[in-house]
């Protein structure tokens, strides 16, 4: 919830909207550059910044009055990273020996 703050949230919404469109353009542009091993990390960093903007401002996590909401969001992220992180450390190191 944004609560009923005095100032209008609209300028913020439009700023996030523009940032998301710029981020999309940036992702497509970065994909055309040869960044060596960094093409995938750059694409994922841009995607994560975009996703964070959507969650914090469009989904109102930043202004959430309920701390439990933030806990659920962080909990979901934690278990997702556990799933991806532990699996990939296994698969990425299987050829080591």
């Amino acid at each position, binding site marked *: *919830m*944004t609560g*009923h703050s005095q100032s209008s*949230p*609209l300028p913020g*919404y*439009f700023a996030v*909207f523009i940032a*998301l*469109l710029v981020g*999309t353009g940036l*992702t*497509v542009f970065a*994909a*055309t*550059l*040869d*960044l060596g091993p960094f*093409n*995938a990390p750059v*694409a*994922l960093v*841009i*995607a994560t910044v*975009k*996703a964070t903007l*959507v*969650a914090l401002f*469009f*989904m109102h996590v930043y202004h*959430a*009055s*309920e701390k*439990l*909401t933030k806990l*659920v*969001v962080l*909990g*979901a*992220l934690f*278990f*997702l990273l556990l*799933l*991806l992180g532990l*699996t*990939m450390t296994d*698969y*990425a190191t299987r050829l080591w020996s």
Partner: protein
Amino acid sequence: MPNSTLVGLHHEEQNRPELLHHFADPEQQRDASSLGMWVFLATEVMFFGGLFCAYLIYRHWYFGDFAAASKSINMALGATNTAVLICSSLTVVLAVWAAQTARRTLLLISLAATMLLGATFLGIKGIEYRDKFVEHHLPGASFSFDHEEIPGHPGQYASPAHAQIFFSLYFVMTGLHALHMIIGLGIFLWLLLMAWKGRFTSEYNTPIEIGGLYWHFVDIVWIYLFPLLYLIDRHK
């Protein structure tokens, strides 16, 4: 409702028929609904997370084949769809704001615009799927991906079997996402009808907010699907 509860009704509650009797105030009721939606979204994160995990494993194993298969997908359509979804997320926050500030016309326009953008997304997705069907890139008996060079490795061809794994993941992940979009359109149609009937006020607009959370989540999934499926090794 039992009589004892009716006797207990005081002035404030009578003015707020939407406030359920087991909540202390509208704020608490709204926070409870919002929290429930976030818990559901957490399960959705794990649901899509399993597919992303499968994707990462196979991409790690068959990177060149994945790059060749990814290159066959129309990047312009994918980028356009990303922009379409971002626009729809903007119309959703406008709808939530319009509901909170009791702007009926803006609310109706924003909800209708969200549905229009959602339908546009699905239409573009349909064109993309059609291309894949025509090119025989749909996994199955008639799948074909012969003599497709691995980007950056002239003379080396992608393995059709490995490319088929990419297209299986492509269809399952974008298909599951599209299913979420279709469900989202249903939710927004219901919201539009309720808004048309004047069910939402500046005091009570939780369904708009909850529906909005769902829509934004589906947008976030696409924000990751776009670079992962459409943009593997495009520079080569």
